[in-house]
Structures are given as C-alpha cells and as structure tokens.
C-alpha cells in the first residue's frame, strides 16, 4: 500500500526547509484535483486562502521569524466546525448556503499555529450517521475502494467503472478519507459516538477522541452536547498527538473545559513505554464482532503484548449491551434540543412562501432537514415530553451511570482497554440504508467512550483483503497523552 508520509517526517522536512509550506500545499492540491472527483471528500476548497497563508509562512521562515507548531502542515476541517466567512453546511440542506461569521476555537488555534487550512470536509448530516452516506449533498467514498491489488491508487476512471464503493465510515468519513488519500497532512473532525474512530478504522488511518471537556466545542455545530469532542485524524498517532496539543485547553466560551489544561505536545520519548502496563480485553468487544475482525485485532494485540511485555487481562463489561440504547436515547434528546434553532428565520434555508408563523417554520424544517435527522428529532421530542420522560430520558441517564460505573471499575484494574474499533468491516455504500437500527448497532464498540467521557482512539492494525481493520485504545478520563502514546507504541509494533 502506498504508505502515507509519517507526520514526523513531514514536520521535519518543513522545519529544515527541505519542504516549503507552498510546496507541501501544492502537493496536496494536486492530489485533490486528481482524486477528489472519485473520493468526494471536500464540500469546499480554500485554495486561494491556503496559498496566501503558505506564502506568508514561507516568507516568515525565510526571514528567520518564528512560526507556529503546525507551521506549513495542511489541515482540512470537518464541515461542522466554523471557519469564518466560509460555508458551514453540516452536510445539510438547511445550511447549504450558510456563511458562518466567526471561527471555532479550534480553528483560531490552527491559524495561530500556522496550519494551512485547505478546505471543508463532507460528513453525515449534522453528524447523524456512521457511514457518511447521510450527507444531503453526496456520499464520500472510502479511498480503499480505489486501491488496486498492488495497493496503488487506481485511476479515477477505473474506480468509477469497476470497483465496489465502500463507505469511509462516519460521521467524519470524509475527514478520514482525506487523510488516507493525502489531501491533507491532518484533519480536524468530531466524535459523538465513534465519528472519528469509525472512519479512521475504515480508511486505515489514526484518529482520536479526547476526554470529554478537553477541547473547546465553541464553534462546533451541536449534535449531542454531552457526548461530543473535536479530535484529530492523522496518518499516525504522532500526528494526532501534535494536533491534540494545539487544540486542547480551557476556553471561557465552553464551560465544560473550565478545569482542563492543554495536552502536552509529543516529545522525543512520546512513543516509548514509560512503565509496564495492564491491558484489559473485554470479551463483549469480541463476541458480537465479525470473526475475521475479532481475530485480526486479537492477533495484533498479541503481537504488541509480546513485543512490549505488557500484561493482558481478560475482563468482562456486561453493561456494554446497554451502551447503544443509553447512547441513542440521550443523543436523540440532546439533538432534538440542538435542532430547535433551525427555523428558517435567522440563517440558513429560507421558507418558500410567507405563511403564518407555525406552518412557515414547520415547512422549512421539514423540507431541509434529512430523514435520519428528522427521525432523531422526533424520537428526542417524544422521549422528553412529560408523559414519557421518566420511562425513557431519565431511565437513559440511569443507564449512562450504570455503563460508566462498569467502565470506570474496569479501568481501575487495568490501565487501558483494547479491542476492535468496529464490529464489522466497511460495507458497501447503500447497504445499511433501509434499517436505522442496523446502522446504530455498528456503534456498539465506540459509544461507551462517549457515554463515559473517556479518551479513545483507533489505529490501523490489519487488512482483510483491502479492507482496513482498526484497533481501539480506551484510557482513563484525563489520560489523553498516555492514550495517544500507547497508540503510537502499538503503531510502531505493527507497522514495523
């Protein structure tokens, strides 16, 4: 397989001057122009702005002036993150032409550290989905669909004609796809129930969801406020760690970050084990999974354990089975609340005719919000009405507590939990369209980290045919640096 350049080597080349910011950007632009017709990752490209920024960085470097931590790295941003004066579509018709008047906190940080922002990436509408087929605009295709037997990216013409098109995962499918094809060095995406880890696993790249409250959500369009975090997608764990160090830290514009400090940047000993660790292998993570996936992940863990000398412990977390119901019930409730703001009056899609107030709002919402989002709004509204709140919403909060306790208990006896990221291999685009519940069940292994606010990431560990398999690492709350470090250690064992 065409190996992606390691983040460390790109940053080294940029630092040494062997690679200029402009040259790095032009490489990426060339790949976008060549392959995005097939992959369809971008909503909007910002080539002019990016070129201006790259030029400005190169001038500063030439003048010996200081540059930021991400200087010259090309970063693409999931289109639920506000980039000032650019479209913030969230993959929805409701915001198809909405130009957002401010930068997300994380985008402010990217700019301050001299990242070169190349464009906005497709996603499932309002982050509601696990395969990026629910964008209102188009489906992003997993780049592995276009790799031939030699692992070379086949031409777009060949791709369009003959290969099966696989999902890149979701909801940040395009973010992982963009990194996988080299459209950018790093991507910034979001993870509410697995939306970074799933596509990272499906596209064969690394992705990380920080501990809840680590990264400011100011500027991230809400899907489920108590579940989601913004996180990095990169060719490797080092790239994840680098981007994480820039975006993390307290922000008075997101009260949940009040007690957080920025995660330190990866240092020279980053990928080295600091002490002997205990790793829990929950049986529930393997029981329901595709046997090939389960075996591949078990083997990868085994190889790592042998090489690193860490201790593997078989554990059981029966509460895993409550994860999907607890997650979705609360997500529906928070999502319905988050979506109230879309009424066609202040921004976004306009009503077609000027009716009375109630029908005007109802019609514009119905016409411009997609099917899955509407389903979630309806269910969220239903379970938070007075008659049903106790049986569903409050009960789901109890289920959340229940799942959290079991995971916290497991993580007192182990330092980390390892298992597959996804129970299945990437499916063909359209395969899971019919039954929403089938789609939901794909999230069973990723939602616990969101329910519990735990840091969790995915690294590529194997391939079944040409389809990538991801290995998930879950750490204790607040152990982000250690978790990404472990991801790097595992990577170096497996990639070799």
């Amino acid at each position: 397989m065409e190996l992606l350049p390691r983040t460390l080597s790109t940053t080294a080349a940029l630092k040494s001057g062997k690679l200029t910011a402009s040259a790095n950007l032009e490489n990426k632009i060339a790949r976008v122009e060549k392959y995005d017709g097939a992959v369809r990752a971008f909503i909007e490209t910002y080539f002019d702005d990016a070129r201006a920024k790259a030029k400005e960085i190169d001038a500063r470097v030439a003048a010996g002036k200081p540059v930021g931590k991400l200087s010259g790295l090309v970063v693409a941003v999931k289109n639920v993150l506000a980039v000032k004066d650019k479209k913030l579509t969230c993959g929805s018709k409701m915001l198809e032409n909405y130009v957002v008047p401010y930068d997300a906190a994380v985008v402010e940080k990217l700019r301050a550290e001299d990242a070169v922002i190349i464009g906005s990436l497709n996603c499932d509408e309002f982050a509601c989905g696990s395969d990026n087929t629910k964008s209102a605009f188009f489906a992003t295709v997993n780049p592995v669909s276009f790799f031939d037997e030699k692992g070379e990216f086949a031409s777009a013409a060949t791709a369009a004609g003959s290969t099966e098109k696989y999902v890149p995962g979701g909801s940040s499918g395009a973010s992982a796809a963009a990194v996988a094809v080299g459209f950018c060095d790093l991507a910034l995406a979001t993870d509410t129930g697995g939306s970074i880890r799933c596509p990272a696993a499906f596209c064969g790249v690394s992705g990380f969801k920080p501990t809840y409250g680590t990264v400011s959500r100011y500027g991230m369009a809400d899907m489920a406020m108590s579940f989601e975090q913004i996180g990095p997608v990169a060719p490797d764990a080092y790239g994840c760690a680098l981007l994480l160090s820039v975006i993390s830290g307290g922000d008075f514009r997101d009260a949940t970050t009040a007690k957080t400090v920025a995660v330190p940047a990866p240092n020279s000993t980053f990928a080295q084990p600091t002490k002997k660790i205990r790793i829990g292998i929950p049986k529930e993570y393997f029981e329901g999974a595709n046997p090939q996936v389960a075996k591949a992940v078990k083997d990868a863990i085994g190889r790592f354990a042998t090489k690193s000398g860490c201790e593997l412990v078989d554990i059981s977390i029966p509460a895993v089975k409550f994860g999907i119901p607890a997650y979705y019930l609360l997500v529906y409730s928070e999502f319905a609340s988050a979506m109230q703001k879309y009424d066609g009056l202040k921004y976004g899609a306009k009503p077609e005719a000027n009716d009375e107030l109630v029908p005007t709002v109802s019609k514009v919402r119905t016409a411009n919000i997609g099917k899955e989002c509407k389903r979630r709004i309806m269910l969220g509204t239903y379970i938070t009405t007075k008659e049903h709140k106790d049986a569903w919403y409050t009960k789901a909060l109890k289920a959340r507590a229940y799942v959290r306790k079991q995971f916290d208990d497991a993580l007192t006896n182990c330092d980390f939990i390892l298992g597959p990221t996804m129970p299945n291999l990437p499916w063909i685009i359209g395969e899971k369209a019919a039954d929403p519940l089938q789609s939901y069940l794909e999230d069973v292994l990723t939602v616990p980290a969101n329910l519990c606010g735990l840091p969790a990431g995915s690294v590529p560990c194997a391939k079944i045919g040409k389809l990538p398999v991801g290995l998930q690492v879950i750490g204790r709350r607040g152990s982000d640096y250690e978790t990404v470090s472990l991801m790097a250690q595992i990577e170096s064992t497996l990639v070799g």
Partner: protein
Amino acid sequence: MEKKITKQDIERVASIARLCPSQDELEGLTADANAILEYFSLIDEIPDSVAPQTYVLSHDNAMRPDEEKKIVDPKAIRRGFGRTQDNYMLAPKSF
C-alpha cells in the same frame, strides 16, 4: 415496552417539533419509533435505584467577569437573516 406508539402520538410529536411529515412518512416514522424503542426498552433491566448521570464532569460552572466586548461586526449576523426590514429581522406575524 409499555404500549405501542400510535400514529397519533407521532403526529402530536411532529407538531411539537415543528415538522409536517406526509402520511407515508408518518407511517414510516411510527414503525421506526416502535421498532427502535422496543429494542431500547432493554434498559428496563437496569435497576431504578441507580442514580441518573446528568453531567459528565463534576466541576462547578466557571464564572466570568462582567465585561463588555464586541465579537463580530453585527452586519455579519444580520446578513444571515431570511428577511429583513431596516436591520430588524422579519418573521411572520402572528396576529
């Protein structure tokens, strides 16, 4: 699950949520709601005595000083308005 969700229930919910699905869509949504909540009623196995987890983090809310600061040019906010009238946003009347 206690009782089946009816089409009327879904209609009422749609009205509260300001959505107006077609008859076909209503039927589909009703079927989905029943199937999904039927499966999710799995959580009834969890004892009621478990305390609900409302907040993920345990810290108190941070407070900020009472300072005024302009963030963006208000024109940038107004440009998003669907309809305007002399810098007012124009919504449908309700009288």
